[in-house]
């Protein structure tokens, strides 16, 4: 991949919060480096602990019961309709075998035709299949397997964020971004419920990271393989892969102006090949192009008549901004500040801004199709921008810059964690619809027909 010097760069990128101290006393560099690795390990440990599924802390039987008081248990324990469907699909694989998947898809089509609104299709294969696999390997009930899977992949997203941030080549980003991701309310929420969106975020971020690496290290077959694999995984995980994919295309097209790296023919082929592979897998699973097309057509068309989607998925173009503000106010405000202050040479920031902007443009124009869960894949890009803005602001106070950034990041993490507690621990939040968030925050108390 890269040579030893690149590895050293990675390690230094992992470490430098107090870079000025390193320069002041070169002898202390290894010690500081070690201490930063310890801090990173602590951050990751906290992030992983917060993501552990609540089932592990249940009284009497659960292995981590002794730590129950430390774990923020989500108030919602009922789960939702989606979880039951994923569970049913996973059970169907267990009962009939993987080869019967086309029958599951056909059964979905028949059922969907009779329903007035949309239900989730079984073509979110990867999540369902891995839940089945987990169940088969560890004899865990399917529903619990879904929870564990969400939890594991949320942890993997956290680890991926740490590695991705370290590869940006900016000092202090690893610790800062990882800390912000460790307590990101929507990340924590996804880890505690059997929802596909956190799982999808992992694959989308893996694809985004591998795109970045492919741009920086052209024609490296290992990065190309990861990229193809991640894109394929996105497609067989959720339909939202389309939004991420269009954003990738946009980034590749914009490379001409922003010079993120080198766009090679191999990379373009990989960008097309990954989704084609995914679609091919879906075709096999659906039992033909007819079933696949019908599944998506039904799912999309019935969504426009689904009362729940009409009630919760509507709004103007800035609906996602409202939702993000409700969940992570300071991160959003910092990210907005960053968007308006990025200089041309800040390639990593532009990379993330383009990813958010292009996918936002599509996602905010989907009628009755707006939901903060879908914005889960923006969590890392937003936090990279927010942390970058914190760094920029701290430069206004050069004497106290290092301590300021440490304190500001810590306070920001506390605010984020507090938001999670308010939204999901003190309130039975399951669906991230605006009205529920507003109820949790006590902004909304009565029906919208309220008059003074």
């Amino acid at each position: 991949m890269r040579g030893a010097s690149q590895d050293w760069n990675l390690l230094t990128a992992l470490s430098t919060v107090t870079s000025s101290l390193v320069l002041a006393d070169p002898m202390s560099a290894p010690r500081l480096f070690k201490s930063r690795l310890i801090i990173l390990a602590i951050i990751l440990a906290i992030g992983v602990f917060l993501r552990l599924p609540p089932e592990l802390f249940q009284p009497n039987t659960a292995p981590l019961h002794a730590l129950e008081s430390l774990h923020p248990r989500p108030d919602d324990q009922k789960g939702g309709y989606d979880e039951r469907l994923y569970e049913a699909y996973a059970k169907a694989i267990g009962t009939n075998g993987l080869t019967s998947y086309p029958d599951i898809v056909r059964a979905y089509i028949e059922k969907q035709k009779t329903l007035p609104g949309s239900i989730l299709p079984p073509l979110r294969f990867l999540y369902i299949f891995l839940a089945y696999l987990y169940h088969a390997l560890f004899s865990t009930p399917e529903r619990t397997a879904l929870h564990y899977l969400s939890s594991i992949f949320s942890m993997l997203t956290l680890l991926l964020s740490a590695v991705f941030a370290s590869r940006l080549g900016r000092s202090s980003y690893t610790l800062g971004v990882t800390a912000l991701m460790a307590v990101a309310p929507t990340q924590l929420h996804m880890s505690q419920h059997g929802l596909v969106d956190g799982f999808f975020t992992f694959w989308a971020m893996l694809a985004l990271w591998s795109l970045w690496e492919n741009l920086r290290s052209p024609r490296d077959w290992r990065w190309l393989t990861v990229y193809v694999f991640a894109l394929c995984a996105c497609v067989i995980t959720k339909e939202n892969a389309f939004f991420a994919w269009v954003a990738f295309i946009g980034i590749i097209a914009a490379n001409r102006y922003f010079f993120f790296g080198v766009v090679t023919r191999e990379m373009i082929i990989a960008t097309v090949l990954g989704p084609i592979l995914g679609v091919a897998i879906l075709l096999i699973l659906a039992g033909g192009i007819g079933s696949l097309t019908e599944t998506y057509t039904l799912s999309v068309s019935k969504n426009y008549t689904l009362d729940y989607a009409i009630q919760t998925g509507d709004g103007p173009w800035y609906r996602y901004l409202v939702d993000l503000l409700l969940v992570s106010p300071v991160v959003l405000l910092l990210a907005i500040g960053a968007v308006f202050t990025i200089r041309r040479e800040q390639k990593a920031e532009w990379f993330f801004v383009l990813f958010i902007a292009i996918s936002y443009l599509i996602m905010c124009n989907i009628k009755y199709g707006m939901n903060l869960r879908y914005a889960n894949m923006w969590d890392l890009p937003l936090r990279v921008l927010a942390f970058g803005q914190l760094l920029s602001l701290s430069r206004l106070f050069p004497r106290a810059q290092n301590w300021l950034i440490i304190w500001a990041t810590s306070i920001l993490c506390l605010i984020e964690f507090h938001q999670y507690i308010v939204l999901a621990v003190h309130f039975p939040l399951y669906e991230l619809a605006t009205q529920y968030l507003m109820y949790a925050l006590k902004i909304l108390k009565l029906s919208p027909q309220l008059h003074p």
Partner: protein
Amino acid sequence: MVPAAMSQLPEKRLGIVLLCLVLFFGAFLRIYPSAGLKYPGVDESYYRHGVMFLVHNGFTSYPSLVRNYAKVQPALPVAIIPPTRVTLIAAAFLWHQIFNTVPLISLRAVACSATVLTLLISALFLYRAAGLAAAIAVSALLSCAPMQIQLAQRAYVDGVFAFTAILTLWLLWENMRGPSSLKWLVPYGASIALMVITKENAAFVFVGILSILACNRWLKIGEVGLNLVITTFAGALAGAATLVIASGGLATLIQAFHANISKTYVTPYVIQTGDGPWFRYILDLIAMSPLVTLLALAALGRLSFQEAISRYFALFLAITYLLMSNLHYGISLRYTAMWDLPLRCLAFTQIVLMAASVPPRYRTIFIPVAVAVVCAVDLSHYSLFFVQNGTYDPTATEILHQLNIVK
């Protein structure tokens, strides 16, 4: 504040004509009765009652009005509007006496006049502080500000209060920027007094003013002399003294405020609509004027302001936001009318900064187009909230419902 292309508007006369057109348009939007809801709202009814009381009993009976309130309020289950908001009631009474209009129309006329005056003094303020181009652009933005137009259409005190607050801010600016002179000090003191007798929210502005005076050493906005500090306190005291006289004594005034505040916390409407986290105002502002708010937030996020006027507004916004967002059950978008000018000034600053990254040949056209787009979005929101849906009080519930975000 403005790039060369804008600051070098070829003819000053043409610029002034343009500014007059913008102001005329803004005044038209305020005067033309476009609001969808015509019947009197709750607040309007209380103000109307106040004016009618004065009409029947004479202006000198004002202390009786306050005494009655102080007597009645403790027995009521909810807080009602106190008659200590002297400016609106007195001005409406005066309007009634001069034009012989009914109390509600008099109140609405006063509110409308105040918002038109807000627009005029804002233009003057910006013209003196940042130049003609900035005055034109910010006046255009302010002309289309949804809350300003709404406050002109109803008998709310908030539009009148916003006028007094912005007048005070402007006069403070003039006093800080120029040598100490009675020409500016006396109107400044009078504007503070007027603000105090307009609404209790004067306390927030007053703290904002004190913060500006205190932080001037670091922000380098201008000169803060002893005369200015004395005038600031003298104005506030004069306002308080007027309130005492209008109430017929200090005890009645305290009793009236105490009764109002204690009942506010048990008023269901206030509990249901005035609660929320510290970022509730940002949420409300984004819902009402998304582009203006985003641009202003971007400008604020830089924390580095070239122009003194931006530092001045940024500090004022920060301090008043800090106070107002921490008021239990006391959050309402109407109270933010006094931020309309600072927010739009900062939004314009951001537009100008963005113009710097636009290719030079498009730079001249970029700023007017951007301002026009922001104005169009604001007007469309005014139309949605207040014309089509006839919103009386723009609570978060109400406006998010009308945006189809909450159903």
